[in-house]
């Protein structure tokens, strides 16, 4: 008996009870669709967050802020010279930061310098933080992967790098990247060439001596005025949606020396003035440390904490994050598996019903020379067909549903995060695996009914009228 004959017989049997076949396939489709959608959602979320974290250097980055430490030997302390009782400010100056940067486990250490500003571009504006970027960062994410424009040529080049997310917040899209879901109307689409090299204006606030005599703080009048600095765009980076490292999507990046060209009131200096610490040893508020490998993270964090610095890092929570993803995947998989189990029971039920209905027919087939194996094969193929149709429909349904859900979610969340997300990672591999899985599970579900069918005594079956 050829495979094609078995397929024809199986298909014929299924066609005989079209409605039941459709309903059983639908059951499988719901099960497989749920499972595929759950997995793609879990994968999508994991992928989005992981990518954003990698892009933002979160797994290898630490941010340290000053705390009490021995001020006389800050750079080389490594926990041995800590004077925990000493409450003097940690002198986060160039020498300390340079000392940290020389540790074997550290790739780069630099001070975090930023200035609050309003960015004006093409008649639109957005509040942003102008952040200094050392030239060494050109070799690390997110700057290493600039595909639009370039990194800075020198530390004093008067240019900036902006993020795609920040442009989207200004409702400016790059031509050919029009993922404007959730951006609403009034979207400005510009060709990439016209954005790179385009001049933007950085608006900062500075003390205005002329207003010192007239400003009345009680009426919220401060002796401040706007300062306008024009800078050209060197490049555009894509931080991803969940950027939360030292370089955020809401930042505008400027070379470390060029930031000095932009005048701005340093809020920290106000506190210094109030505390009478104008000559403070703390030149910088915080430092960013990038370790060479993720496994160095905990060690370096420990050393920095031993120095008396307050350290923040998402990377050392990587295990927790991975466990969270695993838990998320498990929950989603469990829900999908329950749906699948129900559909498998549907297949078993359908095939057992078919045995009762076709008992005599099976007896006839055996009396005509049909072997047990051939009878089993017919049932296997029937189940495989149900599984295949259910799998294809389930995957197609899940794909459509996930696209609809993703579009809907982006209309809501896109407004908040300023860009579109692929909530579902529905790859061809997943689709094919889901269909294959559906067929395999269906065939497995048919093992018991097929064995029952094959073991029918032809004599007994033919006696029954």
């Amino acid at each position, binding site marked *: 008996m050829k495979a094609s004959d078995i397929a024809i017989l199986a298909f014929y049997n299924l066609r005989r009870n079209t409605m039941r076949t459709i309903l059983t396939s639908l059951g499988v489709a719901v099960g497989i669709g749920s499972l595929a959608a759950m997995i793609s959602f879990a994968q999508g979320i994991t992928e989005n967050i992981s990518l954003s974290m990698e892009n933002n250097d979160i797994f290898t980055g630490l941010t340290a802020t000053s705390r009490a430490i021995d001020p006389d030997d800050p750079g080389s302390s490594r926990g041995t010279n800590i004077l925990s009782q000493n409450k003097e400010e940690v002198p986060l100056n160039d020498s300390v930061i340079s000392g940290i940067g020389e540790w074997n486990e550290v790739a780069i250490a630099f001070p975090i310098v930023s200035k609050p500003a309003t960015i004006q571009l093409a008649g639109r504006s957005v509040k942003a933080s102008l952040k200094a970027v050392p030239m060494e960062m050109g070799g690390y994410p997110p700057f290493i992967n600039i595909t639009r424009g370039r990194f800075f040529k020198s530390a004093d080049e008067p240019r900036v790098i902006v993020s795609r997310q920040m442009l989207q917040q200004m409702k400016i899209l790059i031509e050919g990247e029009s993922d404007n879901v959730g951006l609403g109307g009034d979207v400005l689409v510009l060709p990439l060439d016209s954005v790179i090299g385009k001049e933007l204006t950085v608006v900062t606030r500075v003390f205005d001596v002329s207003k010192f005599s007239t400003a009345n703080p009680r009426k919220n009048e401060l002796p401040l005025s706007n300062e306008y600095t024009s800078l050209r765009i060197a490049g555009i980076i894509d931080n991803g949606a969940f950027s939360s490292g030292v370089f955020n999507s809401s930042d505008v990046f400027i070379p470390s020396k060029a930031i000095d060209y932009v005048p701005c009131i340093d809020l920290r200096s106000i506190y210094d003035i109030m505390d009478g610490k104008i000559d403070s040893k703390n030149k910088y508020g915080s430092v960013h440390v990038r370790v060479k490998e993720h496994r160095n993270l905990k060690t370096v964090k420990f050393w920095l904490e031993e120095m008396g610095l307050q350290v923040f890092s998402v990377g050392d929570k990587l295990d927790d994050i991975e466990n969270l993803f695993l838990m998320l995947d498990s929950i989603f998989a469990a829900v999908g598996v329950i749906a699948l189990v129900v559909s498998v029971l549907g297949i078993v039920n359908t095939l057992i019903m078919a045995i009762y209905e076709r008992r005599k027919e099976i007896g*006839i087939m055996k*009396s005509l020379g049909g072997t047990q194996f051939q009878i089993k094969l017919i049932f296997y193929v029937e189940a495989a067909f149900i599984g295949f149709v259910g799998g294809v429909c389930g995957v197609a349904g899940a794909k459509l549903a996930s696209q609809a859900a993703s579009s809907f979610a982006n209309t809501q969340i896109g407004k908040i995060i300023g860009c579109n997300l692929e909530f579902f990672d529905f790859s061809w591999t997943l689709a094919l695996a889901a269909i294959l899985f559906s067929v395999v599970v269906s065939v497995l579900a048919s093992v018991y009914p097929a064995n029952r069918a094959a073991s029918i005594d032809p004599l007994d079956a033919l006696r029954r009228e």
Partner: protein
Amino acid sequence: MALVKVSNLCKTYYKGDNKIYALRNINFDVEEGEFVSIVGKSGSGKSTLLNLLGGMDTTAEGSVSVGGVNILTMSEKQLSQYRKFTVGMIFQSFNLIPSRTAIDNVKLPLIFSNYPRRLRETRACELLYNMGLYNRALHYPSELSGGEAQRVAIARALANKPKIILADEPTGNLDTATSAEIIALLQMFNQKHHITIVMVTHDKETAGRVSHKTVLLSDGEIIKISTNPNP
């Protein structure tokens, strides 16, 4: 050498603690090309004997040799081969698959025997034509008369060109005229095509008229074997 040799065949079953003999010490031969009838009253063991000859039942003592091979000791696979190529069965209630057309029913054994697909249609049409049913090929069993349905069943039994046709009361559900047609058809295949036929029937008179050998059964035992050299 006889085509079929039944030796010391006993079939028993238990009803409570009582051992019941469905067949007791059955011995007879069927020569190639013979028309043999097994007659007897209801419950005499006719159908049981036919089922043993057809390899549908193998739980018996003694031996049923067909072509020198005892079918009672055959494996499941060997039995399938035997049912496929050596015997063709005809039943009182036709046993056609109701959801398949006449031609599809005839093609079914050809599918199991791996008969070339392109030739199946031709073979099935040829058989139906020989049965006078060419114009009924696409009809479902429910659209056929009893006689037509039994002729489709005969066509199906002949599909794989078996050596032996085993007919279990083939006229039991038919009127007299149609029964005569079916018997004549079987006789024709026996005489023209030298197909060995073993038929179970109630009708002693017809059996005696058309058969070379008539085996009379009663309570599972052979009472008499009569022969007719010129049926």
